[in-house]
């Protein structure tokens, strides 16, 4: 029986002061995130799901759906207004939002990985590609130069970055190659949980395909659990076993990807699927 690695319940995030009317006046039925009474933005409301070890969960939605916000909260890039997330790792149970800043940073550095759509968020452009990966290893207390070089080289090879690029600054790389470096950086500590936020959006189709294949291979090799955030059904179809559909901060549909694609229940999902086929 596969174990759960992550349990999320009641995850919510409001920007602004909030008022008693916020929840009732926002959401998919109202077609907005913005509360008409107080102007607050309900980015997330009552998002919940389970993630199992080694599985890929997809989160699909348009911009404003809250899909990226969900992952931001879990990676500690932002703080939720309410909710709970339990991370099960090496026999320990971590209540993520109750941890202090140092504990959160430790989990972030050693047990999570994150690949952003914008490489400026995930990469340090003041050091080389290899330096980026080295930084992550150094944060997890690896102190042997030779080993750092070896592991960086191996991972860059695995993510198909040309070896001569290792000591170059990623400023000069193509978008696709920057994403590869990000993926290598995220994986170098062998985290059990990886977040991928719109990682192929904006890349050429052929590059996208190659990166998606890479992600699938890595997942099979390392058995990493992943949350893949995207607006693209094709990505979901390829990678995710189960999917959440989000709209205006709420989860409107959840289940096996195949079932959602074949037999969408919610009107929005139906439109989404229809427009993509």
């Amino acid at each position: 029986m596969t174990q759960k690695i992550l349990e999320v319940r009641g995850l919510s995030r409001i920007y602004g002061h909030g008022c008693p009317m916020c929840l009732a006046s926002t959401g998919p039925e109202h077609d907005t995130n913005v509360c008409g009474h107080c102007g607050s933005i309900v980015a997330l409301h009552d998002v919940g799901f389970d993630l199992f070890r080694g599985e890929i969960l997809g989160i699909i939605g348009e911009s404003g759906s809250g899909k990226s916000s969900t992952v931001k909260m879990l990676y500690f890039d932002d703080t939720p207004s309410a909710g709970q997330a339990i991370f099960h790792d090496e026999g320990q149970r971590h209540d993520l939002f109750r941890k202090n800043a140092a504990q959160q940073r430790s989990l972030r550095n050693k047990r999570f990985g994150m690949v952003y759509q914008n490489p400026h968020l995930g990469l340090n452009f003041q050091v080389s590609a290899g330096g980026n990966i080295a930084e992550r290893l150094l944060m997890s207390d690896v102190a042997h130069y030779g080993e750092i070089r070896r592991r960086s080289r191996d991972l860059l090879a695995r993510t198909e970055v040309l070896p001569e690029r290792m000591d170059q600054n990623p400023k000069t790389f193509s978008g696709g190659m920057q994403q590869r470096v990000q993926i290598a950086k995220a994986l170098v500590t062998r985290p059990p949980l990886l977040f991928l936020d719109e990682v192929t959006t904006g890349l050429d189709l052929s590059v996208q395909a190659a990166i998606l294949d890479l992600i699938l291979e890595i997942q099979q090799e390392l058995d990493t659990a992943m949350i893949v955030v995207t607006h693209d059904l094709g990505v979901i179809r390829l990678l995710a076993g189960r999917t959440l559909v989000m709209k205006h901060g709420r989860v409107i549909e959840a289940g096996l990807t195949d079932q959602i694609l074949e037999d969408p229940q919610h009107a929005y999902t139906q439109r989404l699927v229809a427009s993509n086929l």
Partner: protein
Amino acid sequence: MNLNYEFPGEETGYAFGFLDEYAKKEVRRAILKAICIPGYQTPYASREMPMGRGFGTGGLQLTLALIGPDDTLKVIDQGADDSVNAVNLRQFILHTCPGVAATEKTEAATVIQSRHRIPEKPLTEAQVLVLQVPYPDPLVVVESSEARRKTMHAEGDYSRLLVKLYEDIVRFDEITISFRYPTRINGHYVIDPSPIPRWDVPKLDQSPALVLLGAGREKKIYAVPPYTPAEPLVFEDVPFRVEHFLDGQDRRRACVRCGATDSYLDEFSNDQDAKIFQCSDSAWCSERLSRQRREEVPA
């Protein structure tokens, strides 16, 4: 304007040690805190001194707060007692601390204030070494915000600094930091040991003497307490190396004055444009020289 106001006829009534008692107490409290948390940069309200910021006011405040009439003072700059900066500071301390004796002999001093060098002669438990610091924080090269640096120090997160060392090795096959080599104290805080050369960094490790570091302009005091581990940041497989002073034929250069091959050397060109090397630690050099002269004279 008070029409009866008159200037004092001459400099009157400075307290012993120039600083008022409140200021001295504050510096001493900061020192105690710094010793209790080895390597931690303790903020303090640094006072203005009659010499410029950057001329050793941090070290000076430490010395003035600690020194008493039964102390013996040595002040050096670049290893030399007679360097202009050392002369200036020594005159000021002696003038404001009547009763304090001055010496050039390292072993005779109880308080040694130094800029950019640690004396060659090993120090003892009876001595305090005060180092003058321009930049207290080794992380300043990778992070300009002090608030963010404090968090990095608190969490022991020096990865961005280590990445710099990594990039050096990639580019030059060497760590190129020459002075101010980042050093980890007591297993946690990494300090900037002040602009001492690599040659002097090993002297901090398990030192019998208390080493205090004062940054006047940056308003920080920190300490390497006696017998505390002080490890320069390295990789497990890239050892820490001191300056080698080898000539083109791999021979260790010697001091032209006393012949020492085991001290840090100053390099300069003489009037014939030849390169000569001389001990940086003038007291060390003079002692060697006078010992040699005594040995030369038949008993």
